[in-house]
């Protein structure tokens, strides 16, 4: 029955529905307005803070100690059957190698900041951060500092941080962890650069990797010794040539114990290794090989540059050919892994003759016609290189079970360094290379 009471009740219901709908619409509009996302972002960064030491402290810390364990192997150098093994940043292990089957550690020469070395006569030249030190090694049981060129290295491993040679140098890097909290509306995308802090610089190991050319002219007596193909120091006559960043620094060492700084010239920012041959220097870089004439020793003249794809590039040379290994990798960049043979008869116009694919070639060395290539984790390879056009068909031996990084072949003894240690082999018969001895590396980590 449609009474007044019912009509009023219906109107109330309608009003109530209308009120509810309006309330819901209002609530929805308020909710929609507030429907924003929020992102709380926590980023953890590690940056490396430089630790400085005064040059006075460093200069006072040179000392000779009893033999120590080898924690890492950098450059190797052979002189008068004494083997000098660089422990990067720490110093030089001195090993009596008259009997390669039984090398005998004799001393450890503590040289902080040492990465390279060369020897002439009875004088060992070693870098120590910004200084070049001359050591008298006439008696390896009583090595003494004989001379020093202070502040000669302007570009030591500062990794982009300027060094005040009159004050302090960076001797270590302290890891610092930082947490950064932020908020966003979630529209930020991940950044591949990762937000690495470059606060005060960051360290990268720019030390040249290993690869070495054989003892072309292994010196003895008053002459120089022989180093690997990764060396950044070399001696030619009475002059010591040192790579310092992109520069070539010359020092007169005619008076062995008192080196005198001479000319410094810029070669290229990416130079890595130096190899002397006759009156020339062959400088390997990640973009090519530079050939310099040192007929006038104190003013090297660049003759030519052989350019190749970007990669690490140790080089060794004989009369006609330069042997260059190119390899890819994190610091080397590029994607090329091969052996290149370059005609260097005309030094002003080097020409690529042959390329052979390799796995990840590092150091190399040549003794007469036997070419040794350290092919990274693919081991050590020995080739007969009498005919440069058929090197790949003349593989004499392939030792896969070792990691090979650098070699010095000399007098039928091959000194090889790899990740696991320092190995010496007898290669009198290249097809039957026999292990003579091993010196283990003890990783500090």
């Amino acid at each position, binding site marked *: 029955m449609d009474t007044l009471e019912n009509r009023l009740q219906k109107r109330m*219901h309608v009003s109530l529905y209308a009120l*509810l709908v309006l309330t*819901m619409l209002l*609530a*929805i509009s308020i*909710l*929609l307005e*507030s*429907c*924003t*996302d*929020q*992102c*709380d*972002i*926590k*980023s*953890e*960064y*590690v*940056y*490396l803070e430089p630790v400085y030491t005064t040059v006075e402290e460093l200069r006072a810390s040179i000392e000779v100690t009893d033999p120590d364990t080898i924690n890492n192997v950098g450059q190797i150098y052979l002189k008068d059957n004494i083997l000098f093994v660089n422990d990067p940043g720490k110093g030089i292990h001195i090993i009596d190698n008259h009997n390669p089957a039984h090398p005998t550690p004799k001393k450890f020469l503590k040289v902080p900041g040492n990465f390279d070395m060369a020897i002439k006569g009875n004088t060992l030249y070693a870098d120590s951060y910004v200084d070049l030190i001359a050591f008298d090694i006439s008696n390896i049981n009583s090595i003494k500092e004989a001379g020093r060129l202070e502040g000669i290295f302007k570009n030591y491993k500062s990794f982009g941080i300027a060094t005040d040679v009159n004050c302090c140098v960076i001797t270590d890097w302290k*890891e610092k962890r930082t947490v950064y909290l932020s908020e966003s509306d*979630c*529209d930020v*995308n*991940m950044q*591949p*650069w*990762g*937000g*690495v802090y470059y606060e005060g610089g*960051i*360290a*990268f*190991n720019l030390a040249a990797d290993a690869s070495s050319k054989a003892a072309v002219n292994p010196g003895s007596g008053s002459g120089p010794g022989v180093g690997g193909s990764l060396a950044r120091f070399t001696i030619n006559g009475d002059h010591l040539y040192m790579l310092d960043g992109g520069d070539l620094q010359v020092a007169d060492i005619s008076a062995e114990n008192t080196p005198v700084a001479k000319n410094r010239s810029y070669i290229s920012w990416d130079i890595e290794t130096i190899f002397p041959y006759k009156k020339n220097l062959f400088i390997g870089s990640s973009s090519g090989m530079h050939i310099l004439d040192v007929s006038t020793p104190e003013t090297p003249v660049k003759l030519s540059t052989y350019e190749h794809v970007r990669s690490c590039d140790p080089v060794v040379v004989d009369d006609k050919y330069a042997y260059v290994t190119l390899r890819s990798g*994190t*610091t080397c960049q590029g994607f090329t892994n091969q052996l290149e043979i370059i005609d260097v008869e005309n030094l002003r116009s080097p020409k690529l003759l042959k390329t052979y694919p390799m796995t990840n070639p590092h150091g190399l060395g040549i003794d007469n016609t036997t070419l040794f290539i350290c092919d990274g984790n693919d081991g050590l390879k020995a080739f007969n290189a009498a005919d440069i056009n058929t090197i790949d068909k003349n593989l004499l031996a392939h030792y896969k079970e070792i990691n090979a990084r650098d070699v010095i072949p000399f007098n039928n003894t091959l000194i090889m360094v790899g990740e696991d240690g320092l190995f010496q082999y007898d290669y009198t018969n290249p097809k039957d290379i026999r292990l003579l001895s091993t010196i283990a590396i003890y990783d500090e980590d």
Partner: protein
Amino acid sequence: MRIRILLLLSICIGPSASAQSDSSVVSKHKVVYYNNILAGGLLGESGKGSGFTVSTTHGIRINRFSIGAGVGFDSYFDWKTVPVFGTIEVDFARLRKNAFFVQINGGYAEAARVRREEWITDYREYGGPMMSYMLGYKMKAEKFSLYILAGQKFQEAHFSYGIPLWSSFAPAPSTTIEESMNRLVVQLGFGIH
């Protein structure tokens, strides 16, 4: 988010408390099973895209109060989630067989992120708590009920990743992002009351 959760809990605890105070008479009322299946949209700010949500809830109804548990699937712009939740519902205004109700849902959702850059490393993703409060209207039709609901849903999800550095000199930076998504929910559904 915490303030909202506390607010929702206080709303939730209110009717629950009154339900407890009526516990002496609860036994006099019939306890009935109910379920529903709901589907709808997740509406957010422009640029985030609209998602969808489906869920099913099962529980018991005692007079004006209902409690239950459910599982669902929600699709957001960057995430897909599978929430498992508990629900409390109170009919606050009955109109004959129909009723307006408020509903509070809370639980946890496993989550998978849809967008993922190729270059990142050490990628990990985690779910997070889910909370929603809804206002709804249900209409009874014989054994079935039809539902229409609107409300707000909060969902947290986390992911972390590292950066592939070109040098191994320093440890790679890592980033953890806690994403709180806030959406307007509109749902339709049906169920047995």
